[in-house]
């Protein structure tokens, strides 16, 4: 990409806006569609949705039959390793807005074909000290600028790209799990067994940008959806959050967006006293947090939707 930074910025915003529109429509594929029929259909909220079949009929189906897919561009191995030229991806998470709605978690799982018990993105309940209030804390990979996980990988399967992303090439990973012990943020997850993806995913050409198909015996983690960025779209968690807690953008252009608001990264961080988690570890995360001041909801609200056994996990913190 050889545009000037001004052009680049406009491009990003344009593409960002496009991303939001598309995501609102929900890129869905009707899984009963015949071979090769990739239909886009509108769906929102309800349990059943109307979709257009390849022969032009409008039918109503259960939402659980629909599946998100990565519409990836075919990129070369080198491109997946070097990253998007001129970019420096950054994320800002507004803790004041997180209510543990967990839409980011499920959107991420859907997009990456993860089983329900596998979370690349987790939401923790944090309580900094005895008297402080608990708050919800979404945690992605921090795509650290001084990544301990990358340092220790013996085969260059996990690597840092020039656009700031830390990715895993699951066709290279030998599964030694050293990176998992090295990451202080417990970001990485392992494919202990088969991931149980739909069979057609197996034919997807493996590529470090999509981590699809998952490979048994290898490590994987939140990848900031670089395939979406390549198409000018936002990561799925950003789009899915009903409260706009995630901002994603480009530090070079100093712009981040949560889909509805687009702001200057530096201003946001300065105004809201943004910080990075575990700064003292020297990992230099690329994810910033805005402190949970003036929360839009009390933290207890985040418990409402949880199943009983999950609620127990947080008992001590309230």
């Amino acid at each position, binding site marked *: 990409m050889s545009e000037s930074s001004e052009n680049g910025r406009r491009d990003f915003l344009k593409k960002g806006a496009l991303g939001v529109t598309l995501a609102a429509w929900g890129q869905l594929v009707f899984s009963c569609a015949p071979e090769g029929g990739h239909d886009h259909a509108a769906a929102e909220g309800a349990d059943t949705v109307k979709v257009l079949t390849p022969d032009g009929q409008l039918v109503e189906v259960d939402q659980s039959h629909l599946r998100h897919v990565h519409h990836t561009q075919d990129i070369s191995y080198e491109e997946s390793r070097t990253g998007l030229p001129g970019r420096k991806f950054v994320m800002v998470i507004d803790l004041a807005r997180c209510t543990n709605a967990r839409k980011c978690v499920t959107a991420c799982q859907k997009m990456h074909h993860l089983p329900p018990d596998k979370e690349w993105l987790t939401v923790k309940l944090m309580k900094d000290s005895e008297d402080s209030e608990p708050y919800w804390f979404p945690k992605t990979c921090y795509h650290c600028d001084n990544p301990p996980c990358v340092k220790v990988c013996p085969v260059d399967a996990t690597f840092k790209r020039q656009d700031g992303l830390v990715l895993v090439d699951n066709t290279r990973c030998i599964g030694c799990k050293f990176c998992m012990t090295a990451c202080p943020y*417990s970001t990485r997850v392992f494919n202990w067994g088969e991931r149980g993806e739909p069979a057609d995913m197996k034919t997807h050409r493996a590529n470090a940008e999509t981590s699809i198909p998952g490979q048994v015996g290898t490590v994987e983690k939140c990848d900031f959806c670089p395939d979406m960025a390549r198409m000018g779209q936002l990561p799925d968690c950003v789009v899915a959050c009903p409260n706009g807690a995630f901002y994603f953008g480009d530090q070079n252009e100093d712009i981040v967006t949560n889909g509805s608001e687009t702001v200057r990264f530096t201003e946001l961080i300065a105004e809201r006293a943004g910080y990075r988690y575990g700064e003292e570890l020297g990992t230099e995360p690329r994810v910033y947090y805005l402190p949970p001041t003036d929360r839009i909801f009390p933290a207890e609200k985040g418990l409402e939707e949880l199943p009983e056994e999950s609620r127990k996990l947080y008992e001590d913190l309230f």
Partner: protein
Amino acid sequence: MKTVDLNKKQTAILQTFGPQLEKSGTMYRLWVGFLLLMILFGGYGLFRQIYIGHVVTGMRDHAVWGYYIANFVYFIGVSYGTAMLAAILYYFKVPWGRPIIRIAALVAFISGVIGPVFILLCIGRFDRLHYLFIHARVQSPITWDVMVISTYLVGITVFTYLLLIKDFAILRDTDKFEFPSWRKKLYNALALRYTGTSEQDQQIGHSTKSMAFIMVPKVVLAFAVLSWIFGMTLRPGWRSSIFGPSYVIASIATGIALIIGVMWVYRKLYKLEDYLKDEHFRYMSLILIALVGAFGYFTLSEYITSWYTSMTWESKVTDKLLSFKEFGWAFHLANFFGIILPIVVIAFRRFRTPTIITALSLLVVFAMWVRRYLTVVPPLETPLLPIQDARPEYVHYSATWVEWSLVLAGAATFFIFFTLVPKLINVVPISDYEKETN
């Protein structure tokens, strides 16, 4: 062809070993069969693990390492420790060390073979092992370890073999036993045409001495690199400057305890009281308590500093080790039986009998394994961020039968090796007594 001549003493040793070199009894066969079954069972566990994936183990996303890595660190540490002991005893020609060097080198060799197998068991993709070479990245401590362990294994194999050549020649030349012809051929090949000329003696002596000399820095490096696998991470309990020294000391102590065990069994089985004397046990026991004492001191200074300063993340790990609700029992019992009890008992001269020393050594062998486990697992179960997982197996590691089967298979391999070795060669070196007249 010139053959190796034996003096009276040497002939006597050879006679001692005759019966077991020549034939095997029923008990012996049953024992070997039992060990083979254990190894086969481990093989079945391994098959399940390869076929189904690592879900069959107790390892999950927080405790990503478990028994396998603990066992790896344990065995390879024992190997380094015993190699160091053998090399030092040889190099400095420690007079009482003579009959022990061979046993030490054999322990080093077999533990050096067993250990790395366990790191392989922990790797998710066997089919990609060659990536460690073709895509090697020099920044990674694992790459350092691959280099160090592979060269170390060559070193210890050569060193052990050099220690055996002369005796292979003696067995080749002796007419006292009825060996089947394949055994004769084997000895012939293994003896490398050694016939006892002074030139050959010089060559072997010189090479062994150089190998012993090389082994010491090699082992120091290997110890360092292995401890850096842990030390180079941001985990409390691992990233400590005393991790390496403490590991070195604990491993040499374990190695010595194991050697004592092997000596005791051999002495009993083959009536070697004239060669493996009481004083050998006494000397070894004194080294043992000096080492476990040092280990106790390192343990204390590691945990007392983190307990006293009580930095949150660090003291979480320490608290888990001390608390009886978590790892407390294992930690305190291991320290009692592995450190305090041996020191207290062996401090009394009258308790320094081979049997008591051996019993204490066995305790040390187990206790040190527990301590290895406790250095690997608790720090993994104590991440910076709270785990908050409803699945209990993701919160606490507990080994499955697959891991047990493989750990037991590892132990069985150790036993079977020491059961089979006396079939092939006399465990007390005959060649070392060549200067003795009677």
